[in-house]
C-alpha cells in the first residue's frame, strides 16, 4: 500500500449519509426509563390481552437478572437503559384505513426513503409494512394478500385479531429468556410485523418491512414473527434507516421464523442504520436476535443479509434444523467503514437427520473498523448424515481496519460432513491498477471489486433489492480513498 493512499485514507471523509434527515412529526411518547410501570403502560397503550402483559412482565423480570453480554469482539460502551424512551409513536396513533388518514409528513418521510405508502406507486409485486419508531404506520396490499389467506399486518393488529396464532408461535423460536437483548425486547417491544402463510400457499409477492427510527432519544424494539405453514413459500425483505444524530440509539429486535413441513422461507435484510460519522460519533447500536426454526421435515430457511449500517452490529441469524431433510443457508455481506464495529455470523443447529446447511460470509473492512465473523455449526448426536459447508472470506481495505473469524464446530455424530474454508485478502494494487489503466477511477474501482467479491451473496437477493444493495455498498465505501 503506497504512502499516498494511506494519507488519503486517513484524511478521508465519509459521504453524507443519505437517509440522515429528521421528520417533523409529533410523537406520542412515554417517559424515559424502564420499570414495570413502563412495561404495563406499553401493554395498555396497545390494549393487549393478558397473556401479552404476562409475557412482557416475565421477560422484564428475567432481564433484570441478566448482565449485558460482553463476549463479542466489540468495544461496548455502557448503555444507560434508564436514559432511553421505550415507546414513541407518530401521532395520530390510530391505524390508517386509507391514505387520507396518514399524516402527510409521515407519507413524505417514507417517500423520501423510496418507500411510497401508496400501493399504486409501490414496486410492483412487493407488499410493505412500514414501521416508524415504535409502531407500524401502514401495511400495503393487505386485502390482496388476504385473498390467498395470507395474513400480513402489524404485530399489534395480529395480537388483537389473531391472538391464537401469536400465542402459539411467539417466543417459540426465541424464548424471552434467550439472551439479554431478547429479554429486553420481549419486555418492551412495541410493534413489528406479523405474517402467516397458510398451507400450500405460495405467496404471490415479496413481503417487506421497512424500519425507520425517527424520534430522538428512543430505542426501537420491534418483533417480527413469520410462520410458513406446511408446503408454503414466502420471500421476505427488511430494510432499515435512521436519522443522523450525535448520540447513539439502541435497536434491539427479535425475528422469529417458523417453517413447517415442506415450507420455505427466504428472509433478506438490507441493513443501513445510521453508522455514525467519520469520527465514530453517533450511530445505531444494533443488537438483534434472529432465528428460524425448520420445524417440519423438508423445510427450508434461507437468510441473506447485507449489512452496511450501525455503529455496532451484534447479530447472528441462525437456524434450528429440527425436521429431517431440513436445509438452511446463510449468505452475508457485512461492510464496516470508519469506526464501525460488527460482530456477526450465524448458528446452524442440526438436530434432524439428513439436514444440510451452507454458510457464505463475506466481510469487508475499511477505515478503522473492526469486522468479525462468529459462527457455530452444531451437529446433535441424533442428526445422522448432517452436512455443512462454511465459507468465510474477509477483505481488507487500507491498513487500519481489522477482520476476525471465530468459527466453532461441535459435531456429536460421526456421520456428519462439515467443511470450513476461510480466506483473508486485501484489495490488491494489481487489481486497482488494472482498473485504473482502463480509465476507471480508484473509488469506482474499489466499488467494482467489492461488488464482485460480494456477488455470490448479492445474487441471492430479490432483483430490485440486489441493485439497491449494490449501490449501498458503493455509497458506504465512498470516502475510503478520499
Amino acid at each position: 500500500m503506497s504512502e499516498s493512499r494511506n494519507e488519503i485514507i486517513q484524511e478521508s471523509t465519509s459521504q453524507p449519509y443519505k437517509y440522515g434527515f429528521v421528520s417533523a412529526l409529533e410523537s406520542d411518547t412515554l417517559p424515559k426509563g424502564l420499570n414495570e410501570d413502563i412495561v404495563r403502560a406499553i401493554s395498555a397503550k396497545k390494549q393487549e390481552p393478558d397473556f401479552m402483559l404476562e409475557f412482557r412482565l416475565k421477560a422484564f423480570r428475567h432481564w433484570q437478572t441478566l448482565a449485558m453480554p460482553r463476549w463479542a469482539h466489540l468495544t461496548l460502551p455502557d448503555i444507560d437503559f434508564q436514559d432511553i424512551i421505550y415507546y414513541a409513536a407518530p401521532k395520530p396513533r390510530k391505524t390508517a384505513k386509507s391514505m387520507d388518514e396518514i399524516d402527510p409528513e409521515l407519507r413524505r418521510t417514507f417517500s423520501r426513503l423510496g418507500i411510497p405508502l401508496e400501493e399504486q406507486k409501490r414496486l410492483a409485486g412487493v407488499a410493505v409494512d412500514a414501521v416508524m419508531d415504535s409502531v407500524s404506520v401502514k401495511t400495503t396490499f393487505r386485502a390482496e394478500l388476504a385473498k390467498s389467506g395470507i395474513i400480513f399486518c402489524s404485530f399489534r393488529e395480529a395480537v388483537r385479531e389473531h391472538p391464537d396464532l401469536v400465542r402459539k408461535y411467539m417466543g417459540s423460536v426465541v424464548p424471552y429468556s434467550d439472551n439479554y437483548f431478547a429479554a429486553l425486547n420481549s419486555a418492551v417491544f412495541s410493534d413489528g410485523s406479523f405474517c402467516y402463510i397458510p398451507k400450500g400457499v405460495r405467496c404471490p409477492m415479496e413481503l417487506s418491512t421497512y424500519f425507520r427510527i425517527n424520534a430522538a432519544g428512543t430505542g426501537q424494539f420491534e418483533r417480527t414473527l413469520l410462520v410458513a405453514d406446511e408446503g408454503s413459500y414466502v420471500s421476505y425483505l427488511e430494510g432499515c434507516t435512521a436519522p443522523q444524530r450525535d448520540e447513539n440509539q439502541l435497536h434491539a429486535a427479535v425475528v422469529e421464523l417458523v417453517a413447517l413441513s415442506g415450507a420455505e422461507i427466504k428472509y433478506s435484510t438490507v441493513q443501513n442504520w445510521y453508522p455514525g460519522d467519520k469520527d465514530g460519533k453517533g450511530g445505531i447500536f444494533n443488537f438483534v436476535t434472529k432465528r428460524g426454526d425448520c420445524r417440519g421435515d423438508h423445510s427450508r430457511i434461507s437468510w441473506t443479509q447485507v449489512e452496511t449500517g450501525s455503529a455496532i452490529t451484534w447479530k447472528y441469524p441462525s437456524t434450528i434444523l429440527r425436521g429431517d431433510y431440513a436445509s438452511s443457508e446463510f449468505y452475508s455481506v457485512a461492510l464496516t467503514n470508519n469506526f464501525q464495529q460488527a460482530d456477526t455470523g450465524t448458528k446452524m443447529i442440526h438436530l434432524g437427520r439428513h439436514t444440510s446447511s451452507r454458510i457464505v460470509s463475506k466481510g469487508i473492512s475499511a477505515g478503522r473498523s473492526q469486522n468479525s465473523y462468529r459462527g457455530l455449526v452444531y451437529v446433535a448426536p441424533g442428526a445422522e448424515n448432517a452436512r455443512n459447508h462454511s465459507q468465510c472470506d474477509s477483505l481488507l481495505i487500507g491498513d487500519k481496519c481489522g477482520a476476525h473469524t471465530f468459527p466453532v464446530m461441535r459435531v456429536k455424530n460421526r456421520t456428519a460432513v462439515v467443511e470450513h474454508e476461510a480466506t483473508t485478502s486485501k484489495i490488491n494494487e494489481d487489481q486497482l491498477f488494472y482498473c485504473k489503466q482502463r480509465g476507471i477511477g480508484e473509488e469506482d474501482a474499489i466499488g467494482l471489486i467489492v461488488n464482485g467479491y460480494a456477488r455470490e451473496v448479492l445474487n441471492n437477493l430479490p432483483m430490485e433489492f440486489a441493485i439497491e444493495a449494490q449501490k449501498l455498498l458503493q455509497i458506504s465505501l465512498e470516502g475510503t480513498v478520499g
Partner: protein
Amino acid sequence: MLEINNLHANIDGTPILKGISLRVSPGEVHAIMGPNGSGKSTLASVLAGRSEYTVTSGSVTFMGRDLLALPAEERARLGIFLGFQYPVEIPGVSIANFMKAAVAARRAAMGLPELTPAEFLKQMRAAAALVELDPKLIKRAVNEGFSGGEKKRNEIFQMAMLKPALSILDETDSGLDIDALRIVSQGVNQLRTPENASIVITHYQRLLDYIVPDVVHVLYAGRIVMSGGKELAKDLETKGYDWIIKSLN
C-alpha cells in the same frame, strides 16, 4: 503524439530507466526489444502511470499534455492503453460490467454521450469476434479461470472496445501458441488506423512477423542503444543481443 525525453525512473531507489528518448507519431508501430531486465516492462508501466515507479527526471508529452502529471486513470481516458503481460483476475466482476465502466469513463473524457445498451452490446460482439473470443466469456468474471491465450485475447478485446490513441502491448506474445499469436496479431493489425499508434514490447522477433513495425528499438540497461527498421529485428533473431552489447563496450 508521444514524446519521451531523457526519462529516468526508479523502483525502490534502484534506477531502471536511465535516459530514454523516443518519439512516436500517429500511424506508427514501434517495437521495443531487449534482453530480460533491460527495462522494457518498466517503460510500459511508467507510461501507464503505475505508482510504484518514481520518475526522477525527464519528461513525457502525450497529445500535448504532460503525461507524468496525470494519474493512471486519466492517462487511460486520454487514450493510453496497456496490454498487460500478466492480466489480473477480478473475481465476481463480469467483463461486460468492467467494460461498461471503462467505456463510460473513456467516452465521458472524450465528450461523447453514453452508449445505448444495444450499441454497447453490438460493439462487444464485434470486438469479441475480432479476436475470436467466445462471447460466453463476456459474461464471466474478468480473467477468472481464463487460459493464458484467453487472457491475452481479452486484452485485445478491451483494446478494440476502448479504441486507444496509443496502445502499449507488453509481451502480448508471451505464453501464446502459434494460433493464438496469429489471432491476437490479426486483431491488433485490424485496429491499426492512420490516427493511432502502437508500442509493441517483445522478446522475440516472431511477433514482428505478424505485427510489422516501422521502427525497432533495442533497450539495454535502461537505455535505447540502437534503433533501426524492421530488418533490425531479423538481425537480433539470428545474432542475439551480444553483438550490440559488445559494440557498446
